[in-house]
């Protein structure tokens, strides 16, 4: 492991909770519904994070706990039953219903597993129920996806067929590109988890080779291992370097020669390097500060340093699974400062003191930092944009070069009239 500088910090945080991941999960699996059992705060959080407005009837909602549910005047389990019945009557096309625990439901110890079990019996053959927690007291932001995927694993049938399983939500077009490249490499049996339809869960077993596409899936990985799956150790497919090593690791697991991999991906790498060039010109030598949020921070830091030549001031991450991040950490330059956890005030003090050119942060902090003259990039955009793979490397760099370019345009001397 390279000599990085690990730090831990506790204090007030400025990070989304796991419920937020519903925003992309419900789009990935259009036949599923996510029912949060929580408070008005939960409902307001998701609608605010989802871009404030809904253009059609959404495939997520909140069963809002009321005074009478808490005072024991109403049986919370019966109430939830009633809400689920109404929902299924209204949306008969739902195939999988996720009961999502929240901070209040965890604190009052509402047993969603038992509720799900009962509902599974009642709606057998029509709707499947699974439960997980997206609560802020247990999960941050992208960890919600980890919980949702982990909850689906028991529903996956066993099979000893050899296959490559891509784990973690990807944009559909990126997923297609990956599958095509793997097929060209000679891996024909490729599946994705989560799948595009919640009912089309891949079968897994001892010949399943898991390749992670996202770095925030610790619990899912553990349970897949328990089911006998082999986990391919690799950095994550962000940028040319990460993606190349990711393809190589997969090829090794399938005994495909390195030469073959290079033969297939070299043209991709060449054109991507070309496309990356102009972004690198802007990013090169610029100082970068990443605040914790999406859990992609370490991979992004590696890409922005190694391929775009940015200087890393500090790499924040909400939590750190050193085992899962081993390959990534090895690629970081020596002495990179990694800070796990957050004390938002102290961290912002460090931001101001270090005079960064670009700060990656949450939406609550972006405009205030801009108002102080510091360019920012919101981290939530990373989980909504297709950024994975060699072909997307320039787009990924573009997310960071754009605010700097804009800043250049707006502060350019030609605009100054006095």
């Amino acid at each position, binding site marked *: 492991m390279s000599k990085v500088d690990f730090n831990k910090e506790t*204090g*007030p*945080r*400025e*990070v*989304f*909770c796991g*419920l*937020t991941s519903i925003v992309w999960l419900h789009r990935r699996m259009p036949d599923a519904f996510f029912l949060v059992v929580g*408070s*008005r*705060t939960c*409902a*307001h*959080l998701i609608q*605010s*994070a989802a871009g*404030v*407005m*809904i253009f*059609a009837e959404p495939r*997520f*909602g*909140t*069963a809002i*706990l*009321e005074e009478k*549910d*808490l005072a024991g005047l*109403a049986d*919370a389990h019966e*109430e939830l039953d*009633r809400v689920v019945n109404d*929902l299924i009557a209204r949306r008969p096309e739902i195939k999988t219903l996720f009961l999502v625990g929240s*901070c*209040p439901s*965890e604190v009052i110890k509402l047993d969603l597993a038992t509720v799900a079990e009962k509902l599974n019996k009642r709606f057998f053959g029509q709707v499947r129920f699974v439960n997980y927690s997206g*609560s*802020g*007291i247990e999960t*941050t932001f992208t960890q919600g996806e980890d919980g949702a995927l982990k909850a689906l694993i028991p529903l996956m049938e066993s099979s000893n067929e050899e296959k490559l399983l891509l784990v973690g939500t990807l944009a559909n*077009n990126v997923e297609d590109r990956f599958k095509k490249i793997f097929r060209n490499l000679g891996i024909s049996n490729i599946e994705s988890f989560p799948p595009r339809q919640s009912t089309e869960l891949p079968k897994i077993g001892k010949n399943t080779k898991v390749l992670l596409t996202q770095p925030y899936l610790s619990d899912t990985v553990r349970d897949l291992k328990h089911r006998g799956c082999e986990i391919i150790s690799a950095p994550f497919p962000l940028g040319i370097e990460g993606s190349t090593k990711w393809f190589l690791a997969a090829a090794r697991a399938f005994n495909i020669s390195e030469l073959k991999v290079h033969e297939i991906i070299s043209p*991709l790498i060449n*054109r*991507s390097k*070309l*496309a990356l*060039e*102009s*972004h690198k*010109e802007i990013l090169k030598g610029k100082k970068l500060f990443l605040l914790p949020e999406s859990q992609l921070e370490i991979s992004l830091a590696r890409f922005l340093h190694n391929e775009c030549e940015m200087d890393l001031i500090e790499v924040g991450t909400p939590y750190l699974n050193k085992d899962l991040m081993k390959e990534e950490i090895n690629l970081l330059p020596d002495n990179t400062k990694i800070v796990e956890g957050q004390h938002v*005030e102290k961290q912002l003090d460090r931001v101001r003191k270090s005079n960064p050119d670009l700060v990656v942060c949450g*939406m*609550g*902090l*972006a*405009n*205030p930092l*801009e108002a102080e003259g510091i360019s920012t990039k919101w981290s939530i955009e990373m989980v909504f944009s297709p950024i994975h793979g060699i*072909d997307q490397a320039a787009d990924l760099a573009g997310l960071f070069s754009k605010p700097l370019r804009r800043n250049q345009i707006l502060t350019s001397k030609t605009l100054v009239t006095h």
Partner: protein
Amino acid sequence: MELTLWTYEGPPHVGAMRIASSMKDIHYVLHAPQGDTYADLLFTMIERRGQRPPVTYTTFQARDLGGDTAELVKKNIKEAVDRFRPKTLLVGESCTAELIQDQPGALAKGMGFDMPIVNLELPAYSKKENWGASETFYQLTRTLLKEKVSFSEKINPLRWKKLGRRPKINILGPSLLGFRCRDDVIEIQRILSEQGIDTNVVAPLGASPEDIERLIDAEVNICLYQEIAEASCEWLKRNFGMEYTKTIPIGIKNTIEFINEVHNKLDLPLTNKQELEHKSKLPWYSKSVDSNYLTGKRVFIFGDGTHAIAAAKIAKEELGFEVVGLGTYTREMARQVRATAKDLNLEALITNNYLEVEDAMKKAAPELVLGTQMERHSAKRLGIPCSVISTPMHVQDVPARYSPQMGWEGANVIFDDWVHPLMMGLEEHLIDMFKHDFEFVDGHQSHLGHTATNTKDFLKSDEKKEKNSKEGIIWTESGRAELTKVPFFVRGKVKTNTEKYAILRGILEISDETLYDAKAYFSKLNY
């Protein structure tokens, strides 16, 4: 338990945040788990604020629950006070903290600070955002002024005469995330100043704790938004005898009535009564012949209490519309909205469920919808023009230009905002004249629904051209498949660029790889 797909109002602690963020020298310590910081983005993204809300979140986690969360609260309070040095401290809890009963307010009061501390108890499982804002503003006012109650005589609204100065009023209720509050305040101050009335304090927007302490220097309170300020106005009336106004100055008639009400309370003669009607263009614009077509237009209204009631009055009496539906999500104002609806021979819709509102809208078959951003979406689905009149806030509801809802300029803004989404009178007439000409294209009927038609045309033509473009270039199946994955709004550009690239390179068949080659090529070129 209530199934909610979308909610008009946030939880009550977000209301408290609105008050804290609106004011100066205040800090709010919120006992809350990770994730509740999402509320910051309402202020920094929607209102485009350049400052973070003055809120410290204790951020307790599951592992803290077994231990001492009270210590965590105290630690955060101490740090917040040391760092931000507020002149008044608000302490409260969000929904989850309410369940673990740490009593953060009581803890704060036991820590020996010399600043006033307001203990906010906002029941998260029964109340909502506006209630929380109102309660916070009330508790704050009460805390900062209660010591003066016994020493102060009842305030005589006529005392300005004896004091030999112009009469003074306070403007109460405007806050962040309130609909056009920023501009309403300027408009109302301007109108009152013209009448020789001075503004003592505007609160909570822009006020400091010291400003709250000097509220009693004014003679009368202007209750600008009942949802936020009525509880405080009532308390000030009960304890200091301060009168407050009830008329909301939205629309010409209500603005005139409001000016009359203020003058009556202050016993100040109104000398320019005749001029008032000419202060806004709305009366003349509404009377001018082009507006004839507005007569009897069916309008459906839904919003917060204040704006829904005002909109109904303007629609009927000042623009000559027919109100075919009226409702609100503000339960606290249900009685007033019902009364207004009854005068219009309607039954008011009181609900927090946007799907119920959409159903009611469908049944009422209106020609114009006045609602929130959610009704704008519903109306769009139904193909009905809509203008937004109320919160919940959207970034578009915080325009760069001056655009109040209240007073004379507010009436001008309302005329434009409500009438422009409709097809203009003259335009409607001309379309009727020319619609049988062969040049006439369906999509050109008006400025309504343009985007929808264009998108469809675009997609259709896309399909046709994809198969065979005139340069003899062929899109292979993989190329076409890749193209359909590109978001529709840039698909045209990607297609043109790829074809341009193919011609340049002498490529006859465009595959998915060509598309990516072109992408890389143009990405490089564009810098």
